[in-house]
């Protein structure tokens, strides 16, 4: 697994290519890219808990590796001030077959949303405010706990 928490943007094409480079056993690569939505937002600042962030992400990826047969996993999460349309997060997974790649990619995002110590602050015309956690994100993470 490779995990990065950084201010800089990333190259989706290069990251996706790297997931299966020189690996004849990789039959599937699934990826997710999260973006800053521009509706009513001028900018978004992401704060995190540096000492814990990479540890929390590594724990989430380790859980995914126990649940599915994965070959490579790449997680990149940006921090700092981002503008509408900018990329926030990249999750990429390679596996032999598509099911494991799709499922693990979604699992990692669902757990990241509810367990990794990042906080978003939005700047709007009316001022800045911290984004509230959504119950739907908790529900999305919880569905992996049952019915496996």
């Amino acid at each position, binding site marked *: 697994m490779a995990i990065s928490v950084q201010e800089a943007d990333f190259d989706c094409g290069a990251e996706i290519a790297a997931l299966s480079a020189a690996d004849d056993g990789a039959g599937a690569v699934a990826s997710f890219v999260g973006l800053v939505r521009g509706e009513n937002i001028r900018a978004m600042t992401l704060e995190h808990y540096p000492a*814990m962030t990479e540890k929390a992400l590594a724990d989430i990826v380790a859980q995914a590796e126990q649940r599915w047969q994965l070959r490579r996993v790449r997680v990149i999460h940006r921090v700092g001030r981002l503008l509408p349309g900018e990329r926030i997060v990249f999750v990429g997974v390679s596996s032999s077959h598509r099911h494991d790649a799709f499922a693990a990619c979604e699992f990692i995002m669902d757990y990241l*949303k509810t367990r990794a*110590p990042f906080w978003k602050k939005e700047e709007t015309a009316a001022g800045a405010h911290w984004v*509230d956690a959504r119950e739907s994100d908790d529900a999305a993470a919880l569905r992996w706990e049952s019915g496996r």
Partner: protein
Amino acid sequence: MIKLLYFASLREALGAAGESLELPAGVASVGALRAHLAARGGAWEVFATSKSLRAAVNQAMAGAEARVAPGDEVAFFPPVTGG
């Protein structure tokens, strides 16, 4: 001593990003630490009133019953909103 850290909206509400604290006698869990901090009054009462406040001990998510001992790093923060 323990190291306390506060993040995001909690950091702004308290006007502090963290502090070093001599662990008072009898305070040995996250729940007891919250009660101790709430007793400071004012903005600190959020430690007693907030149901959503989360905690981590030594960079791992921790519930109210989690043990706290000298040398630990204890962080408090609102529910996470990354991704």
